[in-house]
């Protein structure tokens, strides 16, 4: 491949300076003359019929400009997955969890809006509620949505190969149960929206969203107006992790009130609202049976998975499907029987979260693999290497894996953590562990999963790039600009980017499924090529050579391999104009992943994604055997992202994944009691702080995927799959306890250590004569 000048470089994020100096403008930083402030009244009951909502006292509060409840809005359901729509912007007839939206007000000040909210009177008829998914599945359980009498709103029952036969042929069978907890995404920027309506009746909404174009569609649906009457603009977004792909009441209410009052309207959620009434990672109960051959081949797996969905669907069908299919990567698995249920309960709602349904099952698989390895007397690394999927192998669900660096990531992560020297050899209380995973780089063929881009070459030689891609902090705008700069042979600073405005920028599905770099990057690359071609035509004419002989580098267009023979881009533009070619120079690109066997997986098998990333994370931990506290000392993250367009940003993703995975393994849990979240704040919800972050080494593995731009695959969501099980496996190596439910708190560790000590009739403390006191 040609030497690259911009792609592959450690370029700082384009807006890093803006963000680091506090100048970046997020939705809540925007403000318009005459703006009204909104607040939402939420249900204090987990399950109840709404008999009557009395807004009259709220309307009397000075400064209040509007108050609505469910009966005032169009009766239009929404949901991020079209087949699973089950939610109204404000509850109509019924509330289904503590925090469900009941009414909303707008006022000239937040104080007035808060006061007004406290004056709304709601008569409820309380209904029996159900908080446990297994209880919810039993006959006679309270029915949360009338259309779903057994509370199972999405399920999957799939078999690949012949599991019964494979179990019969297995030399060993292993059967275990695992449990994962509810985890909140905790984006630092809470959800917010600001809406205005112009005299023609068009709504413009600035929102902290990951998916402006889907939001436009959902907003149009719920407002019951044409999509052409809605414009969504994404300002800076302070993190999403999947929590900002849904439409929320704040989006609907801002737009609805703007239409009603003809004034700008802003809604911003409190942190408490982010915790109780946005989305969270689905807690899962996982029963897993695995059949093994003597030689260490994984022959078959059988799963029963029950996901606690909370009160609504959000991404339910997709989540449970992903959980199923991505068991068949990164290990070869020809026989799989998967039974998965998404169950309604009267609790906060589950949704997409970095990894989306996969981290939970991956934890079960990776933890079980380690115990299988031990029982079979095989090194867990060797067991994984033996079963590692390879590029080009046939896949039982027909996924087309063109590049696969999984084995490399295993070796590199193991080497990085010092596997050979450390595994099983460190003193009691210290241990290493690893885990692998795979993730799609976007989805191939679901409704409007394609991206567009426009590249304009301006008269001064600078480049304007329009992309629909939604940068939510991961650096999409930087990466896509790098791709365009590389293609046009200009430095990054020559690119001006406008992104994620449904009125100006081309269609893009948004940031989810880890598809942005591949999909929007390809669209931008095609657009840049198209623009370049026009300029090349003029340059070739002037130089009297063929277009194919030209290349663009260092702001010049010249003969390939001969920089002397050519001209600057500006000269080329001048000639372009003087030769009566029409300005402006515009290149357009649209990209949809090739789908030889198009599928959504929901209905049929087939290739789900244009490319698959692979990764291994390895952890070294220290367990304070007197207090049970686990400290992650070091993580090595080895990731096959195809090609790192910007290694610094890939590292950023890997580092973030370690913190997130550590949170899920050791610290975080949304705790509820009768449906009420007990810890809806950063004080009580234990998300790791900078103080907990271990030393992190990132090792990139490059496989140069043929489908990705410059060979790139994903490095976002997938990175989140392996850290938690790696940490759990390291804990086993440290203290000999296999934890099967997350998070592994000091309290659980201490209890397990004491039980072990009683069982073995020895004091674990005696093994550790002088541990450092860990008093934080």
């Amino acid at each position, binding site marked *: 491949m040609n030497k690259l000048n911009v792609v592959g470089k450690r370029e700082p994020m384009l807006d890093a300076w803006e963000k680091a100096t506090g100048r970046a403008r997020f939705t809540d930083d925007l403000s318009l003359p005459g703006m009204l402030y909104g607040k939402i009244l939420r249900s204090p009951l987990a399950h109840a019929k709404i008999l009557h909502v009395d807004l009259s006292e709220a309307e009397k509060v000075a400064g209040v400009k509007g108050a609505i409840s469910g009966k005032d809005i169009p009766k239009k359901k929404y949901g991020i997955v079209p087949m699973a729509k089950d939610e109204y912007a404000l509850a109509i007839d019924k509330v289904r969890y503590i925090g469900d939206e009941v009414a909303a007000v707008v006022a000239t000040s*937040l*104080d007035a809006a808060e006061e007004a909210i*406290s004056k709304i009177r709601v008569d409820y008829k309380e209904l029996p509620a159900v908080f446990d998914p297994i209880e919810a599945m039993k006959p006679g359980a309270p029915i949360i949505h009338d259309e779903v009498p057994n509370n199972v709103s999405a399920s999957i029952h799939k078999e690949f190969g012949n599991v019964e036969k494979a179990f019969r042929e297995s030399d060993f069978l292993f059967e275990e149960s695992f449990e994962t907890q509810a985890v909140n995404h905790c984006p630092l920027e809470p959800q917010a929206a600001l809406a205005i309506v112009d005299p023609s009746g068009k709504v413009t909404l600035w929102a902290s969203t990951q998916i402006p174009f889907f939001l436009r569609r959902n907003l149009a649906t719920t407002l019951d107006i044409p999509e052409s009457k809605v414009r969504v603009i994404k300002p800076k977004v302070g993190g999403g992790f999947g929590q900002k792909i849904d439409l929320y009441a704040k989006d609907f209410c801002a737009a609805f009130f703007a239409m009603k009052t003809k004034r700008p309207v802003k809604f911003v959620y409190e942190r*408490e609202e982010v915790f109780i009434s946005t989305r969270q990672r689905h807690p899962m109960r996982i029963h897993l049976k695995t059949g093994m051959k003597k030689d260490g081949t994984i022959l078959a797996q059988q799963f029963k998975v029950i996901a606690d969905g909370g009160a609504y669907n959000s991404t339910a069908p997709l989540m449970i499907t992903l959980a199923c299919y991505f068991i068949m990567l990164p290990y070869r698995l020809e026989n799989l029987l998967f039974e998965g249920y998404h169950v309604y309960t009267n609790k906060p709602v589950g949704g997409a979260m970095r990894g989306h349904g996969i981290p939970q099952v991956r934890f079960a698989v990776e933890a079980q693999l380690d115990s299988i390895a031990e029982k079979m007397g095989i090194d867990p690394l060797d067991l994984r290497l033996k079963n590692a999927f390879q590029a080009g192998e046939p896949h039982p669900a027909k996924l087309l894996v063109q590049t696969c660096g999984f084995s490399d990531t295993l070796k590199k992560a193991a080497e990085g953590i010092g596997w050979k020297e450390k595994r099983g050899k460190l003193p009691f209380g210290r241990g290493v562990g690893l885990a692998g995973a795979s993730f799609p780089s976007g989805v191939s063929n679901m409704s409007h999963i394609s991206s567009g881009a426009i590249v304009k070459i301006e008269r001064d030689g600078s480049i304007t790039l329009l992309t629909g891609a939604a940068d939510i902090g991961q650096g999409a705008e930087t990466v896509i600009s790098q791709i365009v700069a590389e293609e046009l042979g200009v430095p990054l600073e020559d690119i001006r980017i406008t992104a994620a405005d449904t009125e100006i920028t081309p269609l893009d599905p948004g940031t989810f499924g880890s598809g942005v770099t591949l999909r929007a990057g390809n669209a931008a690359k095609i657009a840049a090529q198209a623009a370049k071609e026009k300029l090349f035509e003029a340059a070739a004419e002037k130089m009297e050579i063929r277009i194919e002989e030209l290349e663009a580098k260092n702001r010049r267009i010249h003969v390939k391999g001969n920089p002397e023979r050519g001209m600057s881009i500006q000269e080329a533009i001048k000639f372009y104009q003087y030769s009566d070619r029409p300005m402006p120079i515009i290149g357009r690109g649209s990209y949809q992943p090739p789908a030889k066997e198009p599928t959504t997986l929901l209905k049929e098998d087939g290739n789900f994604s244009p490319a698959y990333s692979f990764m291994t994370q390895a952890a070294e931990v220290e367990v304070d055997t007197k207090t049970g506290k686990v400290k992650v000392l070091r993580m090595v993250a080895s990731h096959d992202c195809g090609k790192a367009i910007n290694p610094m940003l890939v590292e950023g993703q890997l580092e973030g994944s370690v913190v997130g995975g550590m949170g899920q393994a050791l610290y975080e849990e949304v705790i509820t009691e009768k449906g009420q979240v007990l810890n809806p704040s950063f004080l009580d919800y234990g998300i790791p702080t900078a103080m907990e972050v271990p030393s992190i080494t990132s090792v990139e593995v490059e496989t140069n995927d043929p489908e990705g731009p410059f060979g790139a695959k994903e490095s976002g969501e997938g990175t989140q799959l392996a850290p938690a099980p790696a940490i759990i496996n390291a804990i086993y190596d440290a203290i000999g306890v296999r934890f099967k439910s997350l998070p592994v708190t000091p309290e659980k560790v201490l209890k397990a250590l004491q039980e072990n000590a009683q069982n073995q009739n020895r004091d674990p403390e005696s093994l550790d004569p002088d541990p450092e006191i860990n008093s934080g």
Partner: protein
Amino acid sequence: MRLPKFEYLEPKTLKEAAKALASDTKESVLLAGGTDLLVNMKHKVIQPKQVINLKTIPKLAYISNGKDGLRIGALTTLHDIASSQAIQEEVPILSQAAGEVGAYAHQVMGTLGGNLCQGNRCRFYNQSAFWRGVKSPCYKVGGKICHVVPARAGGGRKPKECHSTYCGDMAPVLIALDTQVRVVGPNGERVFPLSKLYTQEGKKPLSLRKGEILKEILFPPPSGKALYLKWRRRESIEFPIVSLAFHIEKDGNERIQKARIIFSGVGSGPVEALEAEKMLKNASLDDWMIEKVSNQAIKEISPMRTSIHSPAYKRKMAGILLKQALEKISS
């Protein structure tokens, strides 16, 4: 969340502040760093008519080490205490404890006086008004129930109006160090041992009389060895799940003369394990003794389910912290 409406006063002197605080016509509260108060006001746990800002009164923030010993003004920030060289040399555990309060932002804004006078905590009322609205109001916010120990018909436990927990970091340390507190009221000053500031009553945790304001902390000459062990999940932001301040004085023959064992996070005020302290007098610290003392100490605390951590876990950790402290001291 917005602050409820209130009147705001910037007094020029402590006396003026004390008078304003004592005036019967208004329900007033004092504002120091605001890191505790303002959160409670936003949650509408407290809705005062008047807020009196102490920070505008001159000369209340100081660390002085003169011939009458070490004194720290009530408005001194925790950050100043954590970074003061005089304190680091004289009473290192004090700067350590100050540096472990909440996160950096709390230490920069938060004051010593505010820390000592901070409200008790409970998972049922350190929550937003919306959150609390899910349940009936508890004693602390004018209701008739304590959700921690709901009264049962003919129930066993003695009824108590509020089981909220004291979770401050500085009080256990300063009590263990035998400090005194000077308070200024509308009718003059009084000085008393800091331990007497705490009533052990959840509903009114401080013994301050109407209009009284904490002015300064007075230290005895430094003696013996002291340790502060704070147990929490993360190394920042968090209150102690349970913490222990331990102070020990030995005579010339290495015999223990006096020991103070003070816990935070396990009662309605800082809790002193008096019987365990007595056991330590003249004791030699072998493994058997350490076990015995820590077993005794955990009998003297009665943690309640006021946070997401169970009372049993708090009790277990209290014992472990004390064991660790004794091992450290004896080695």
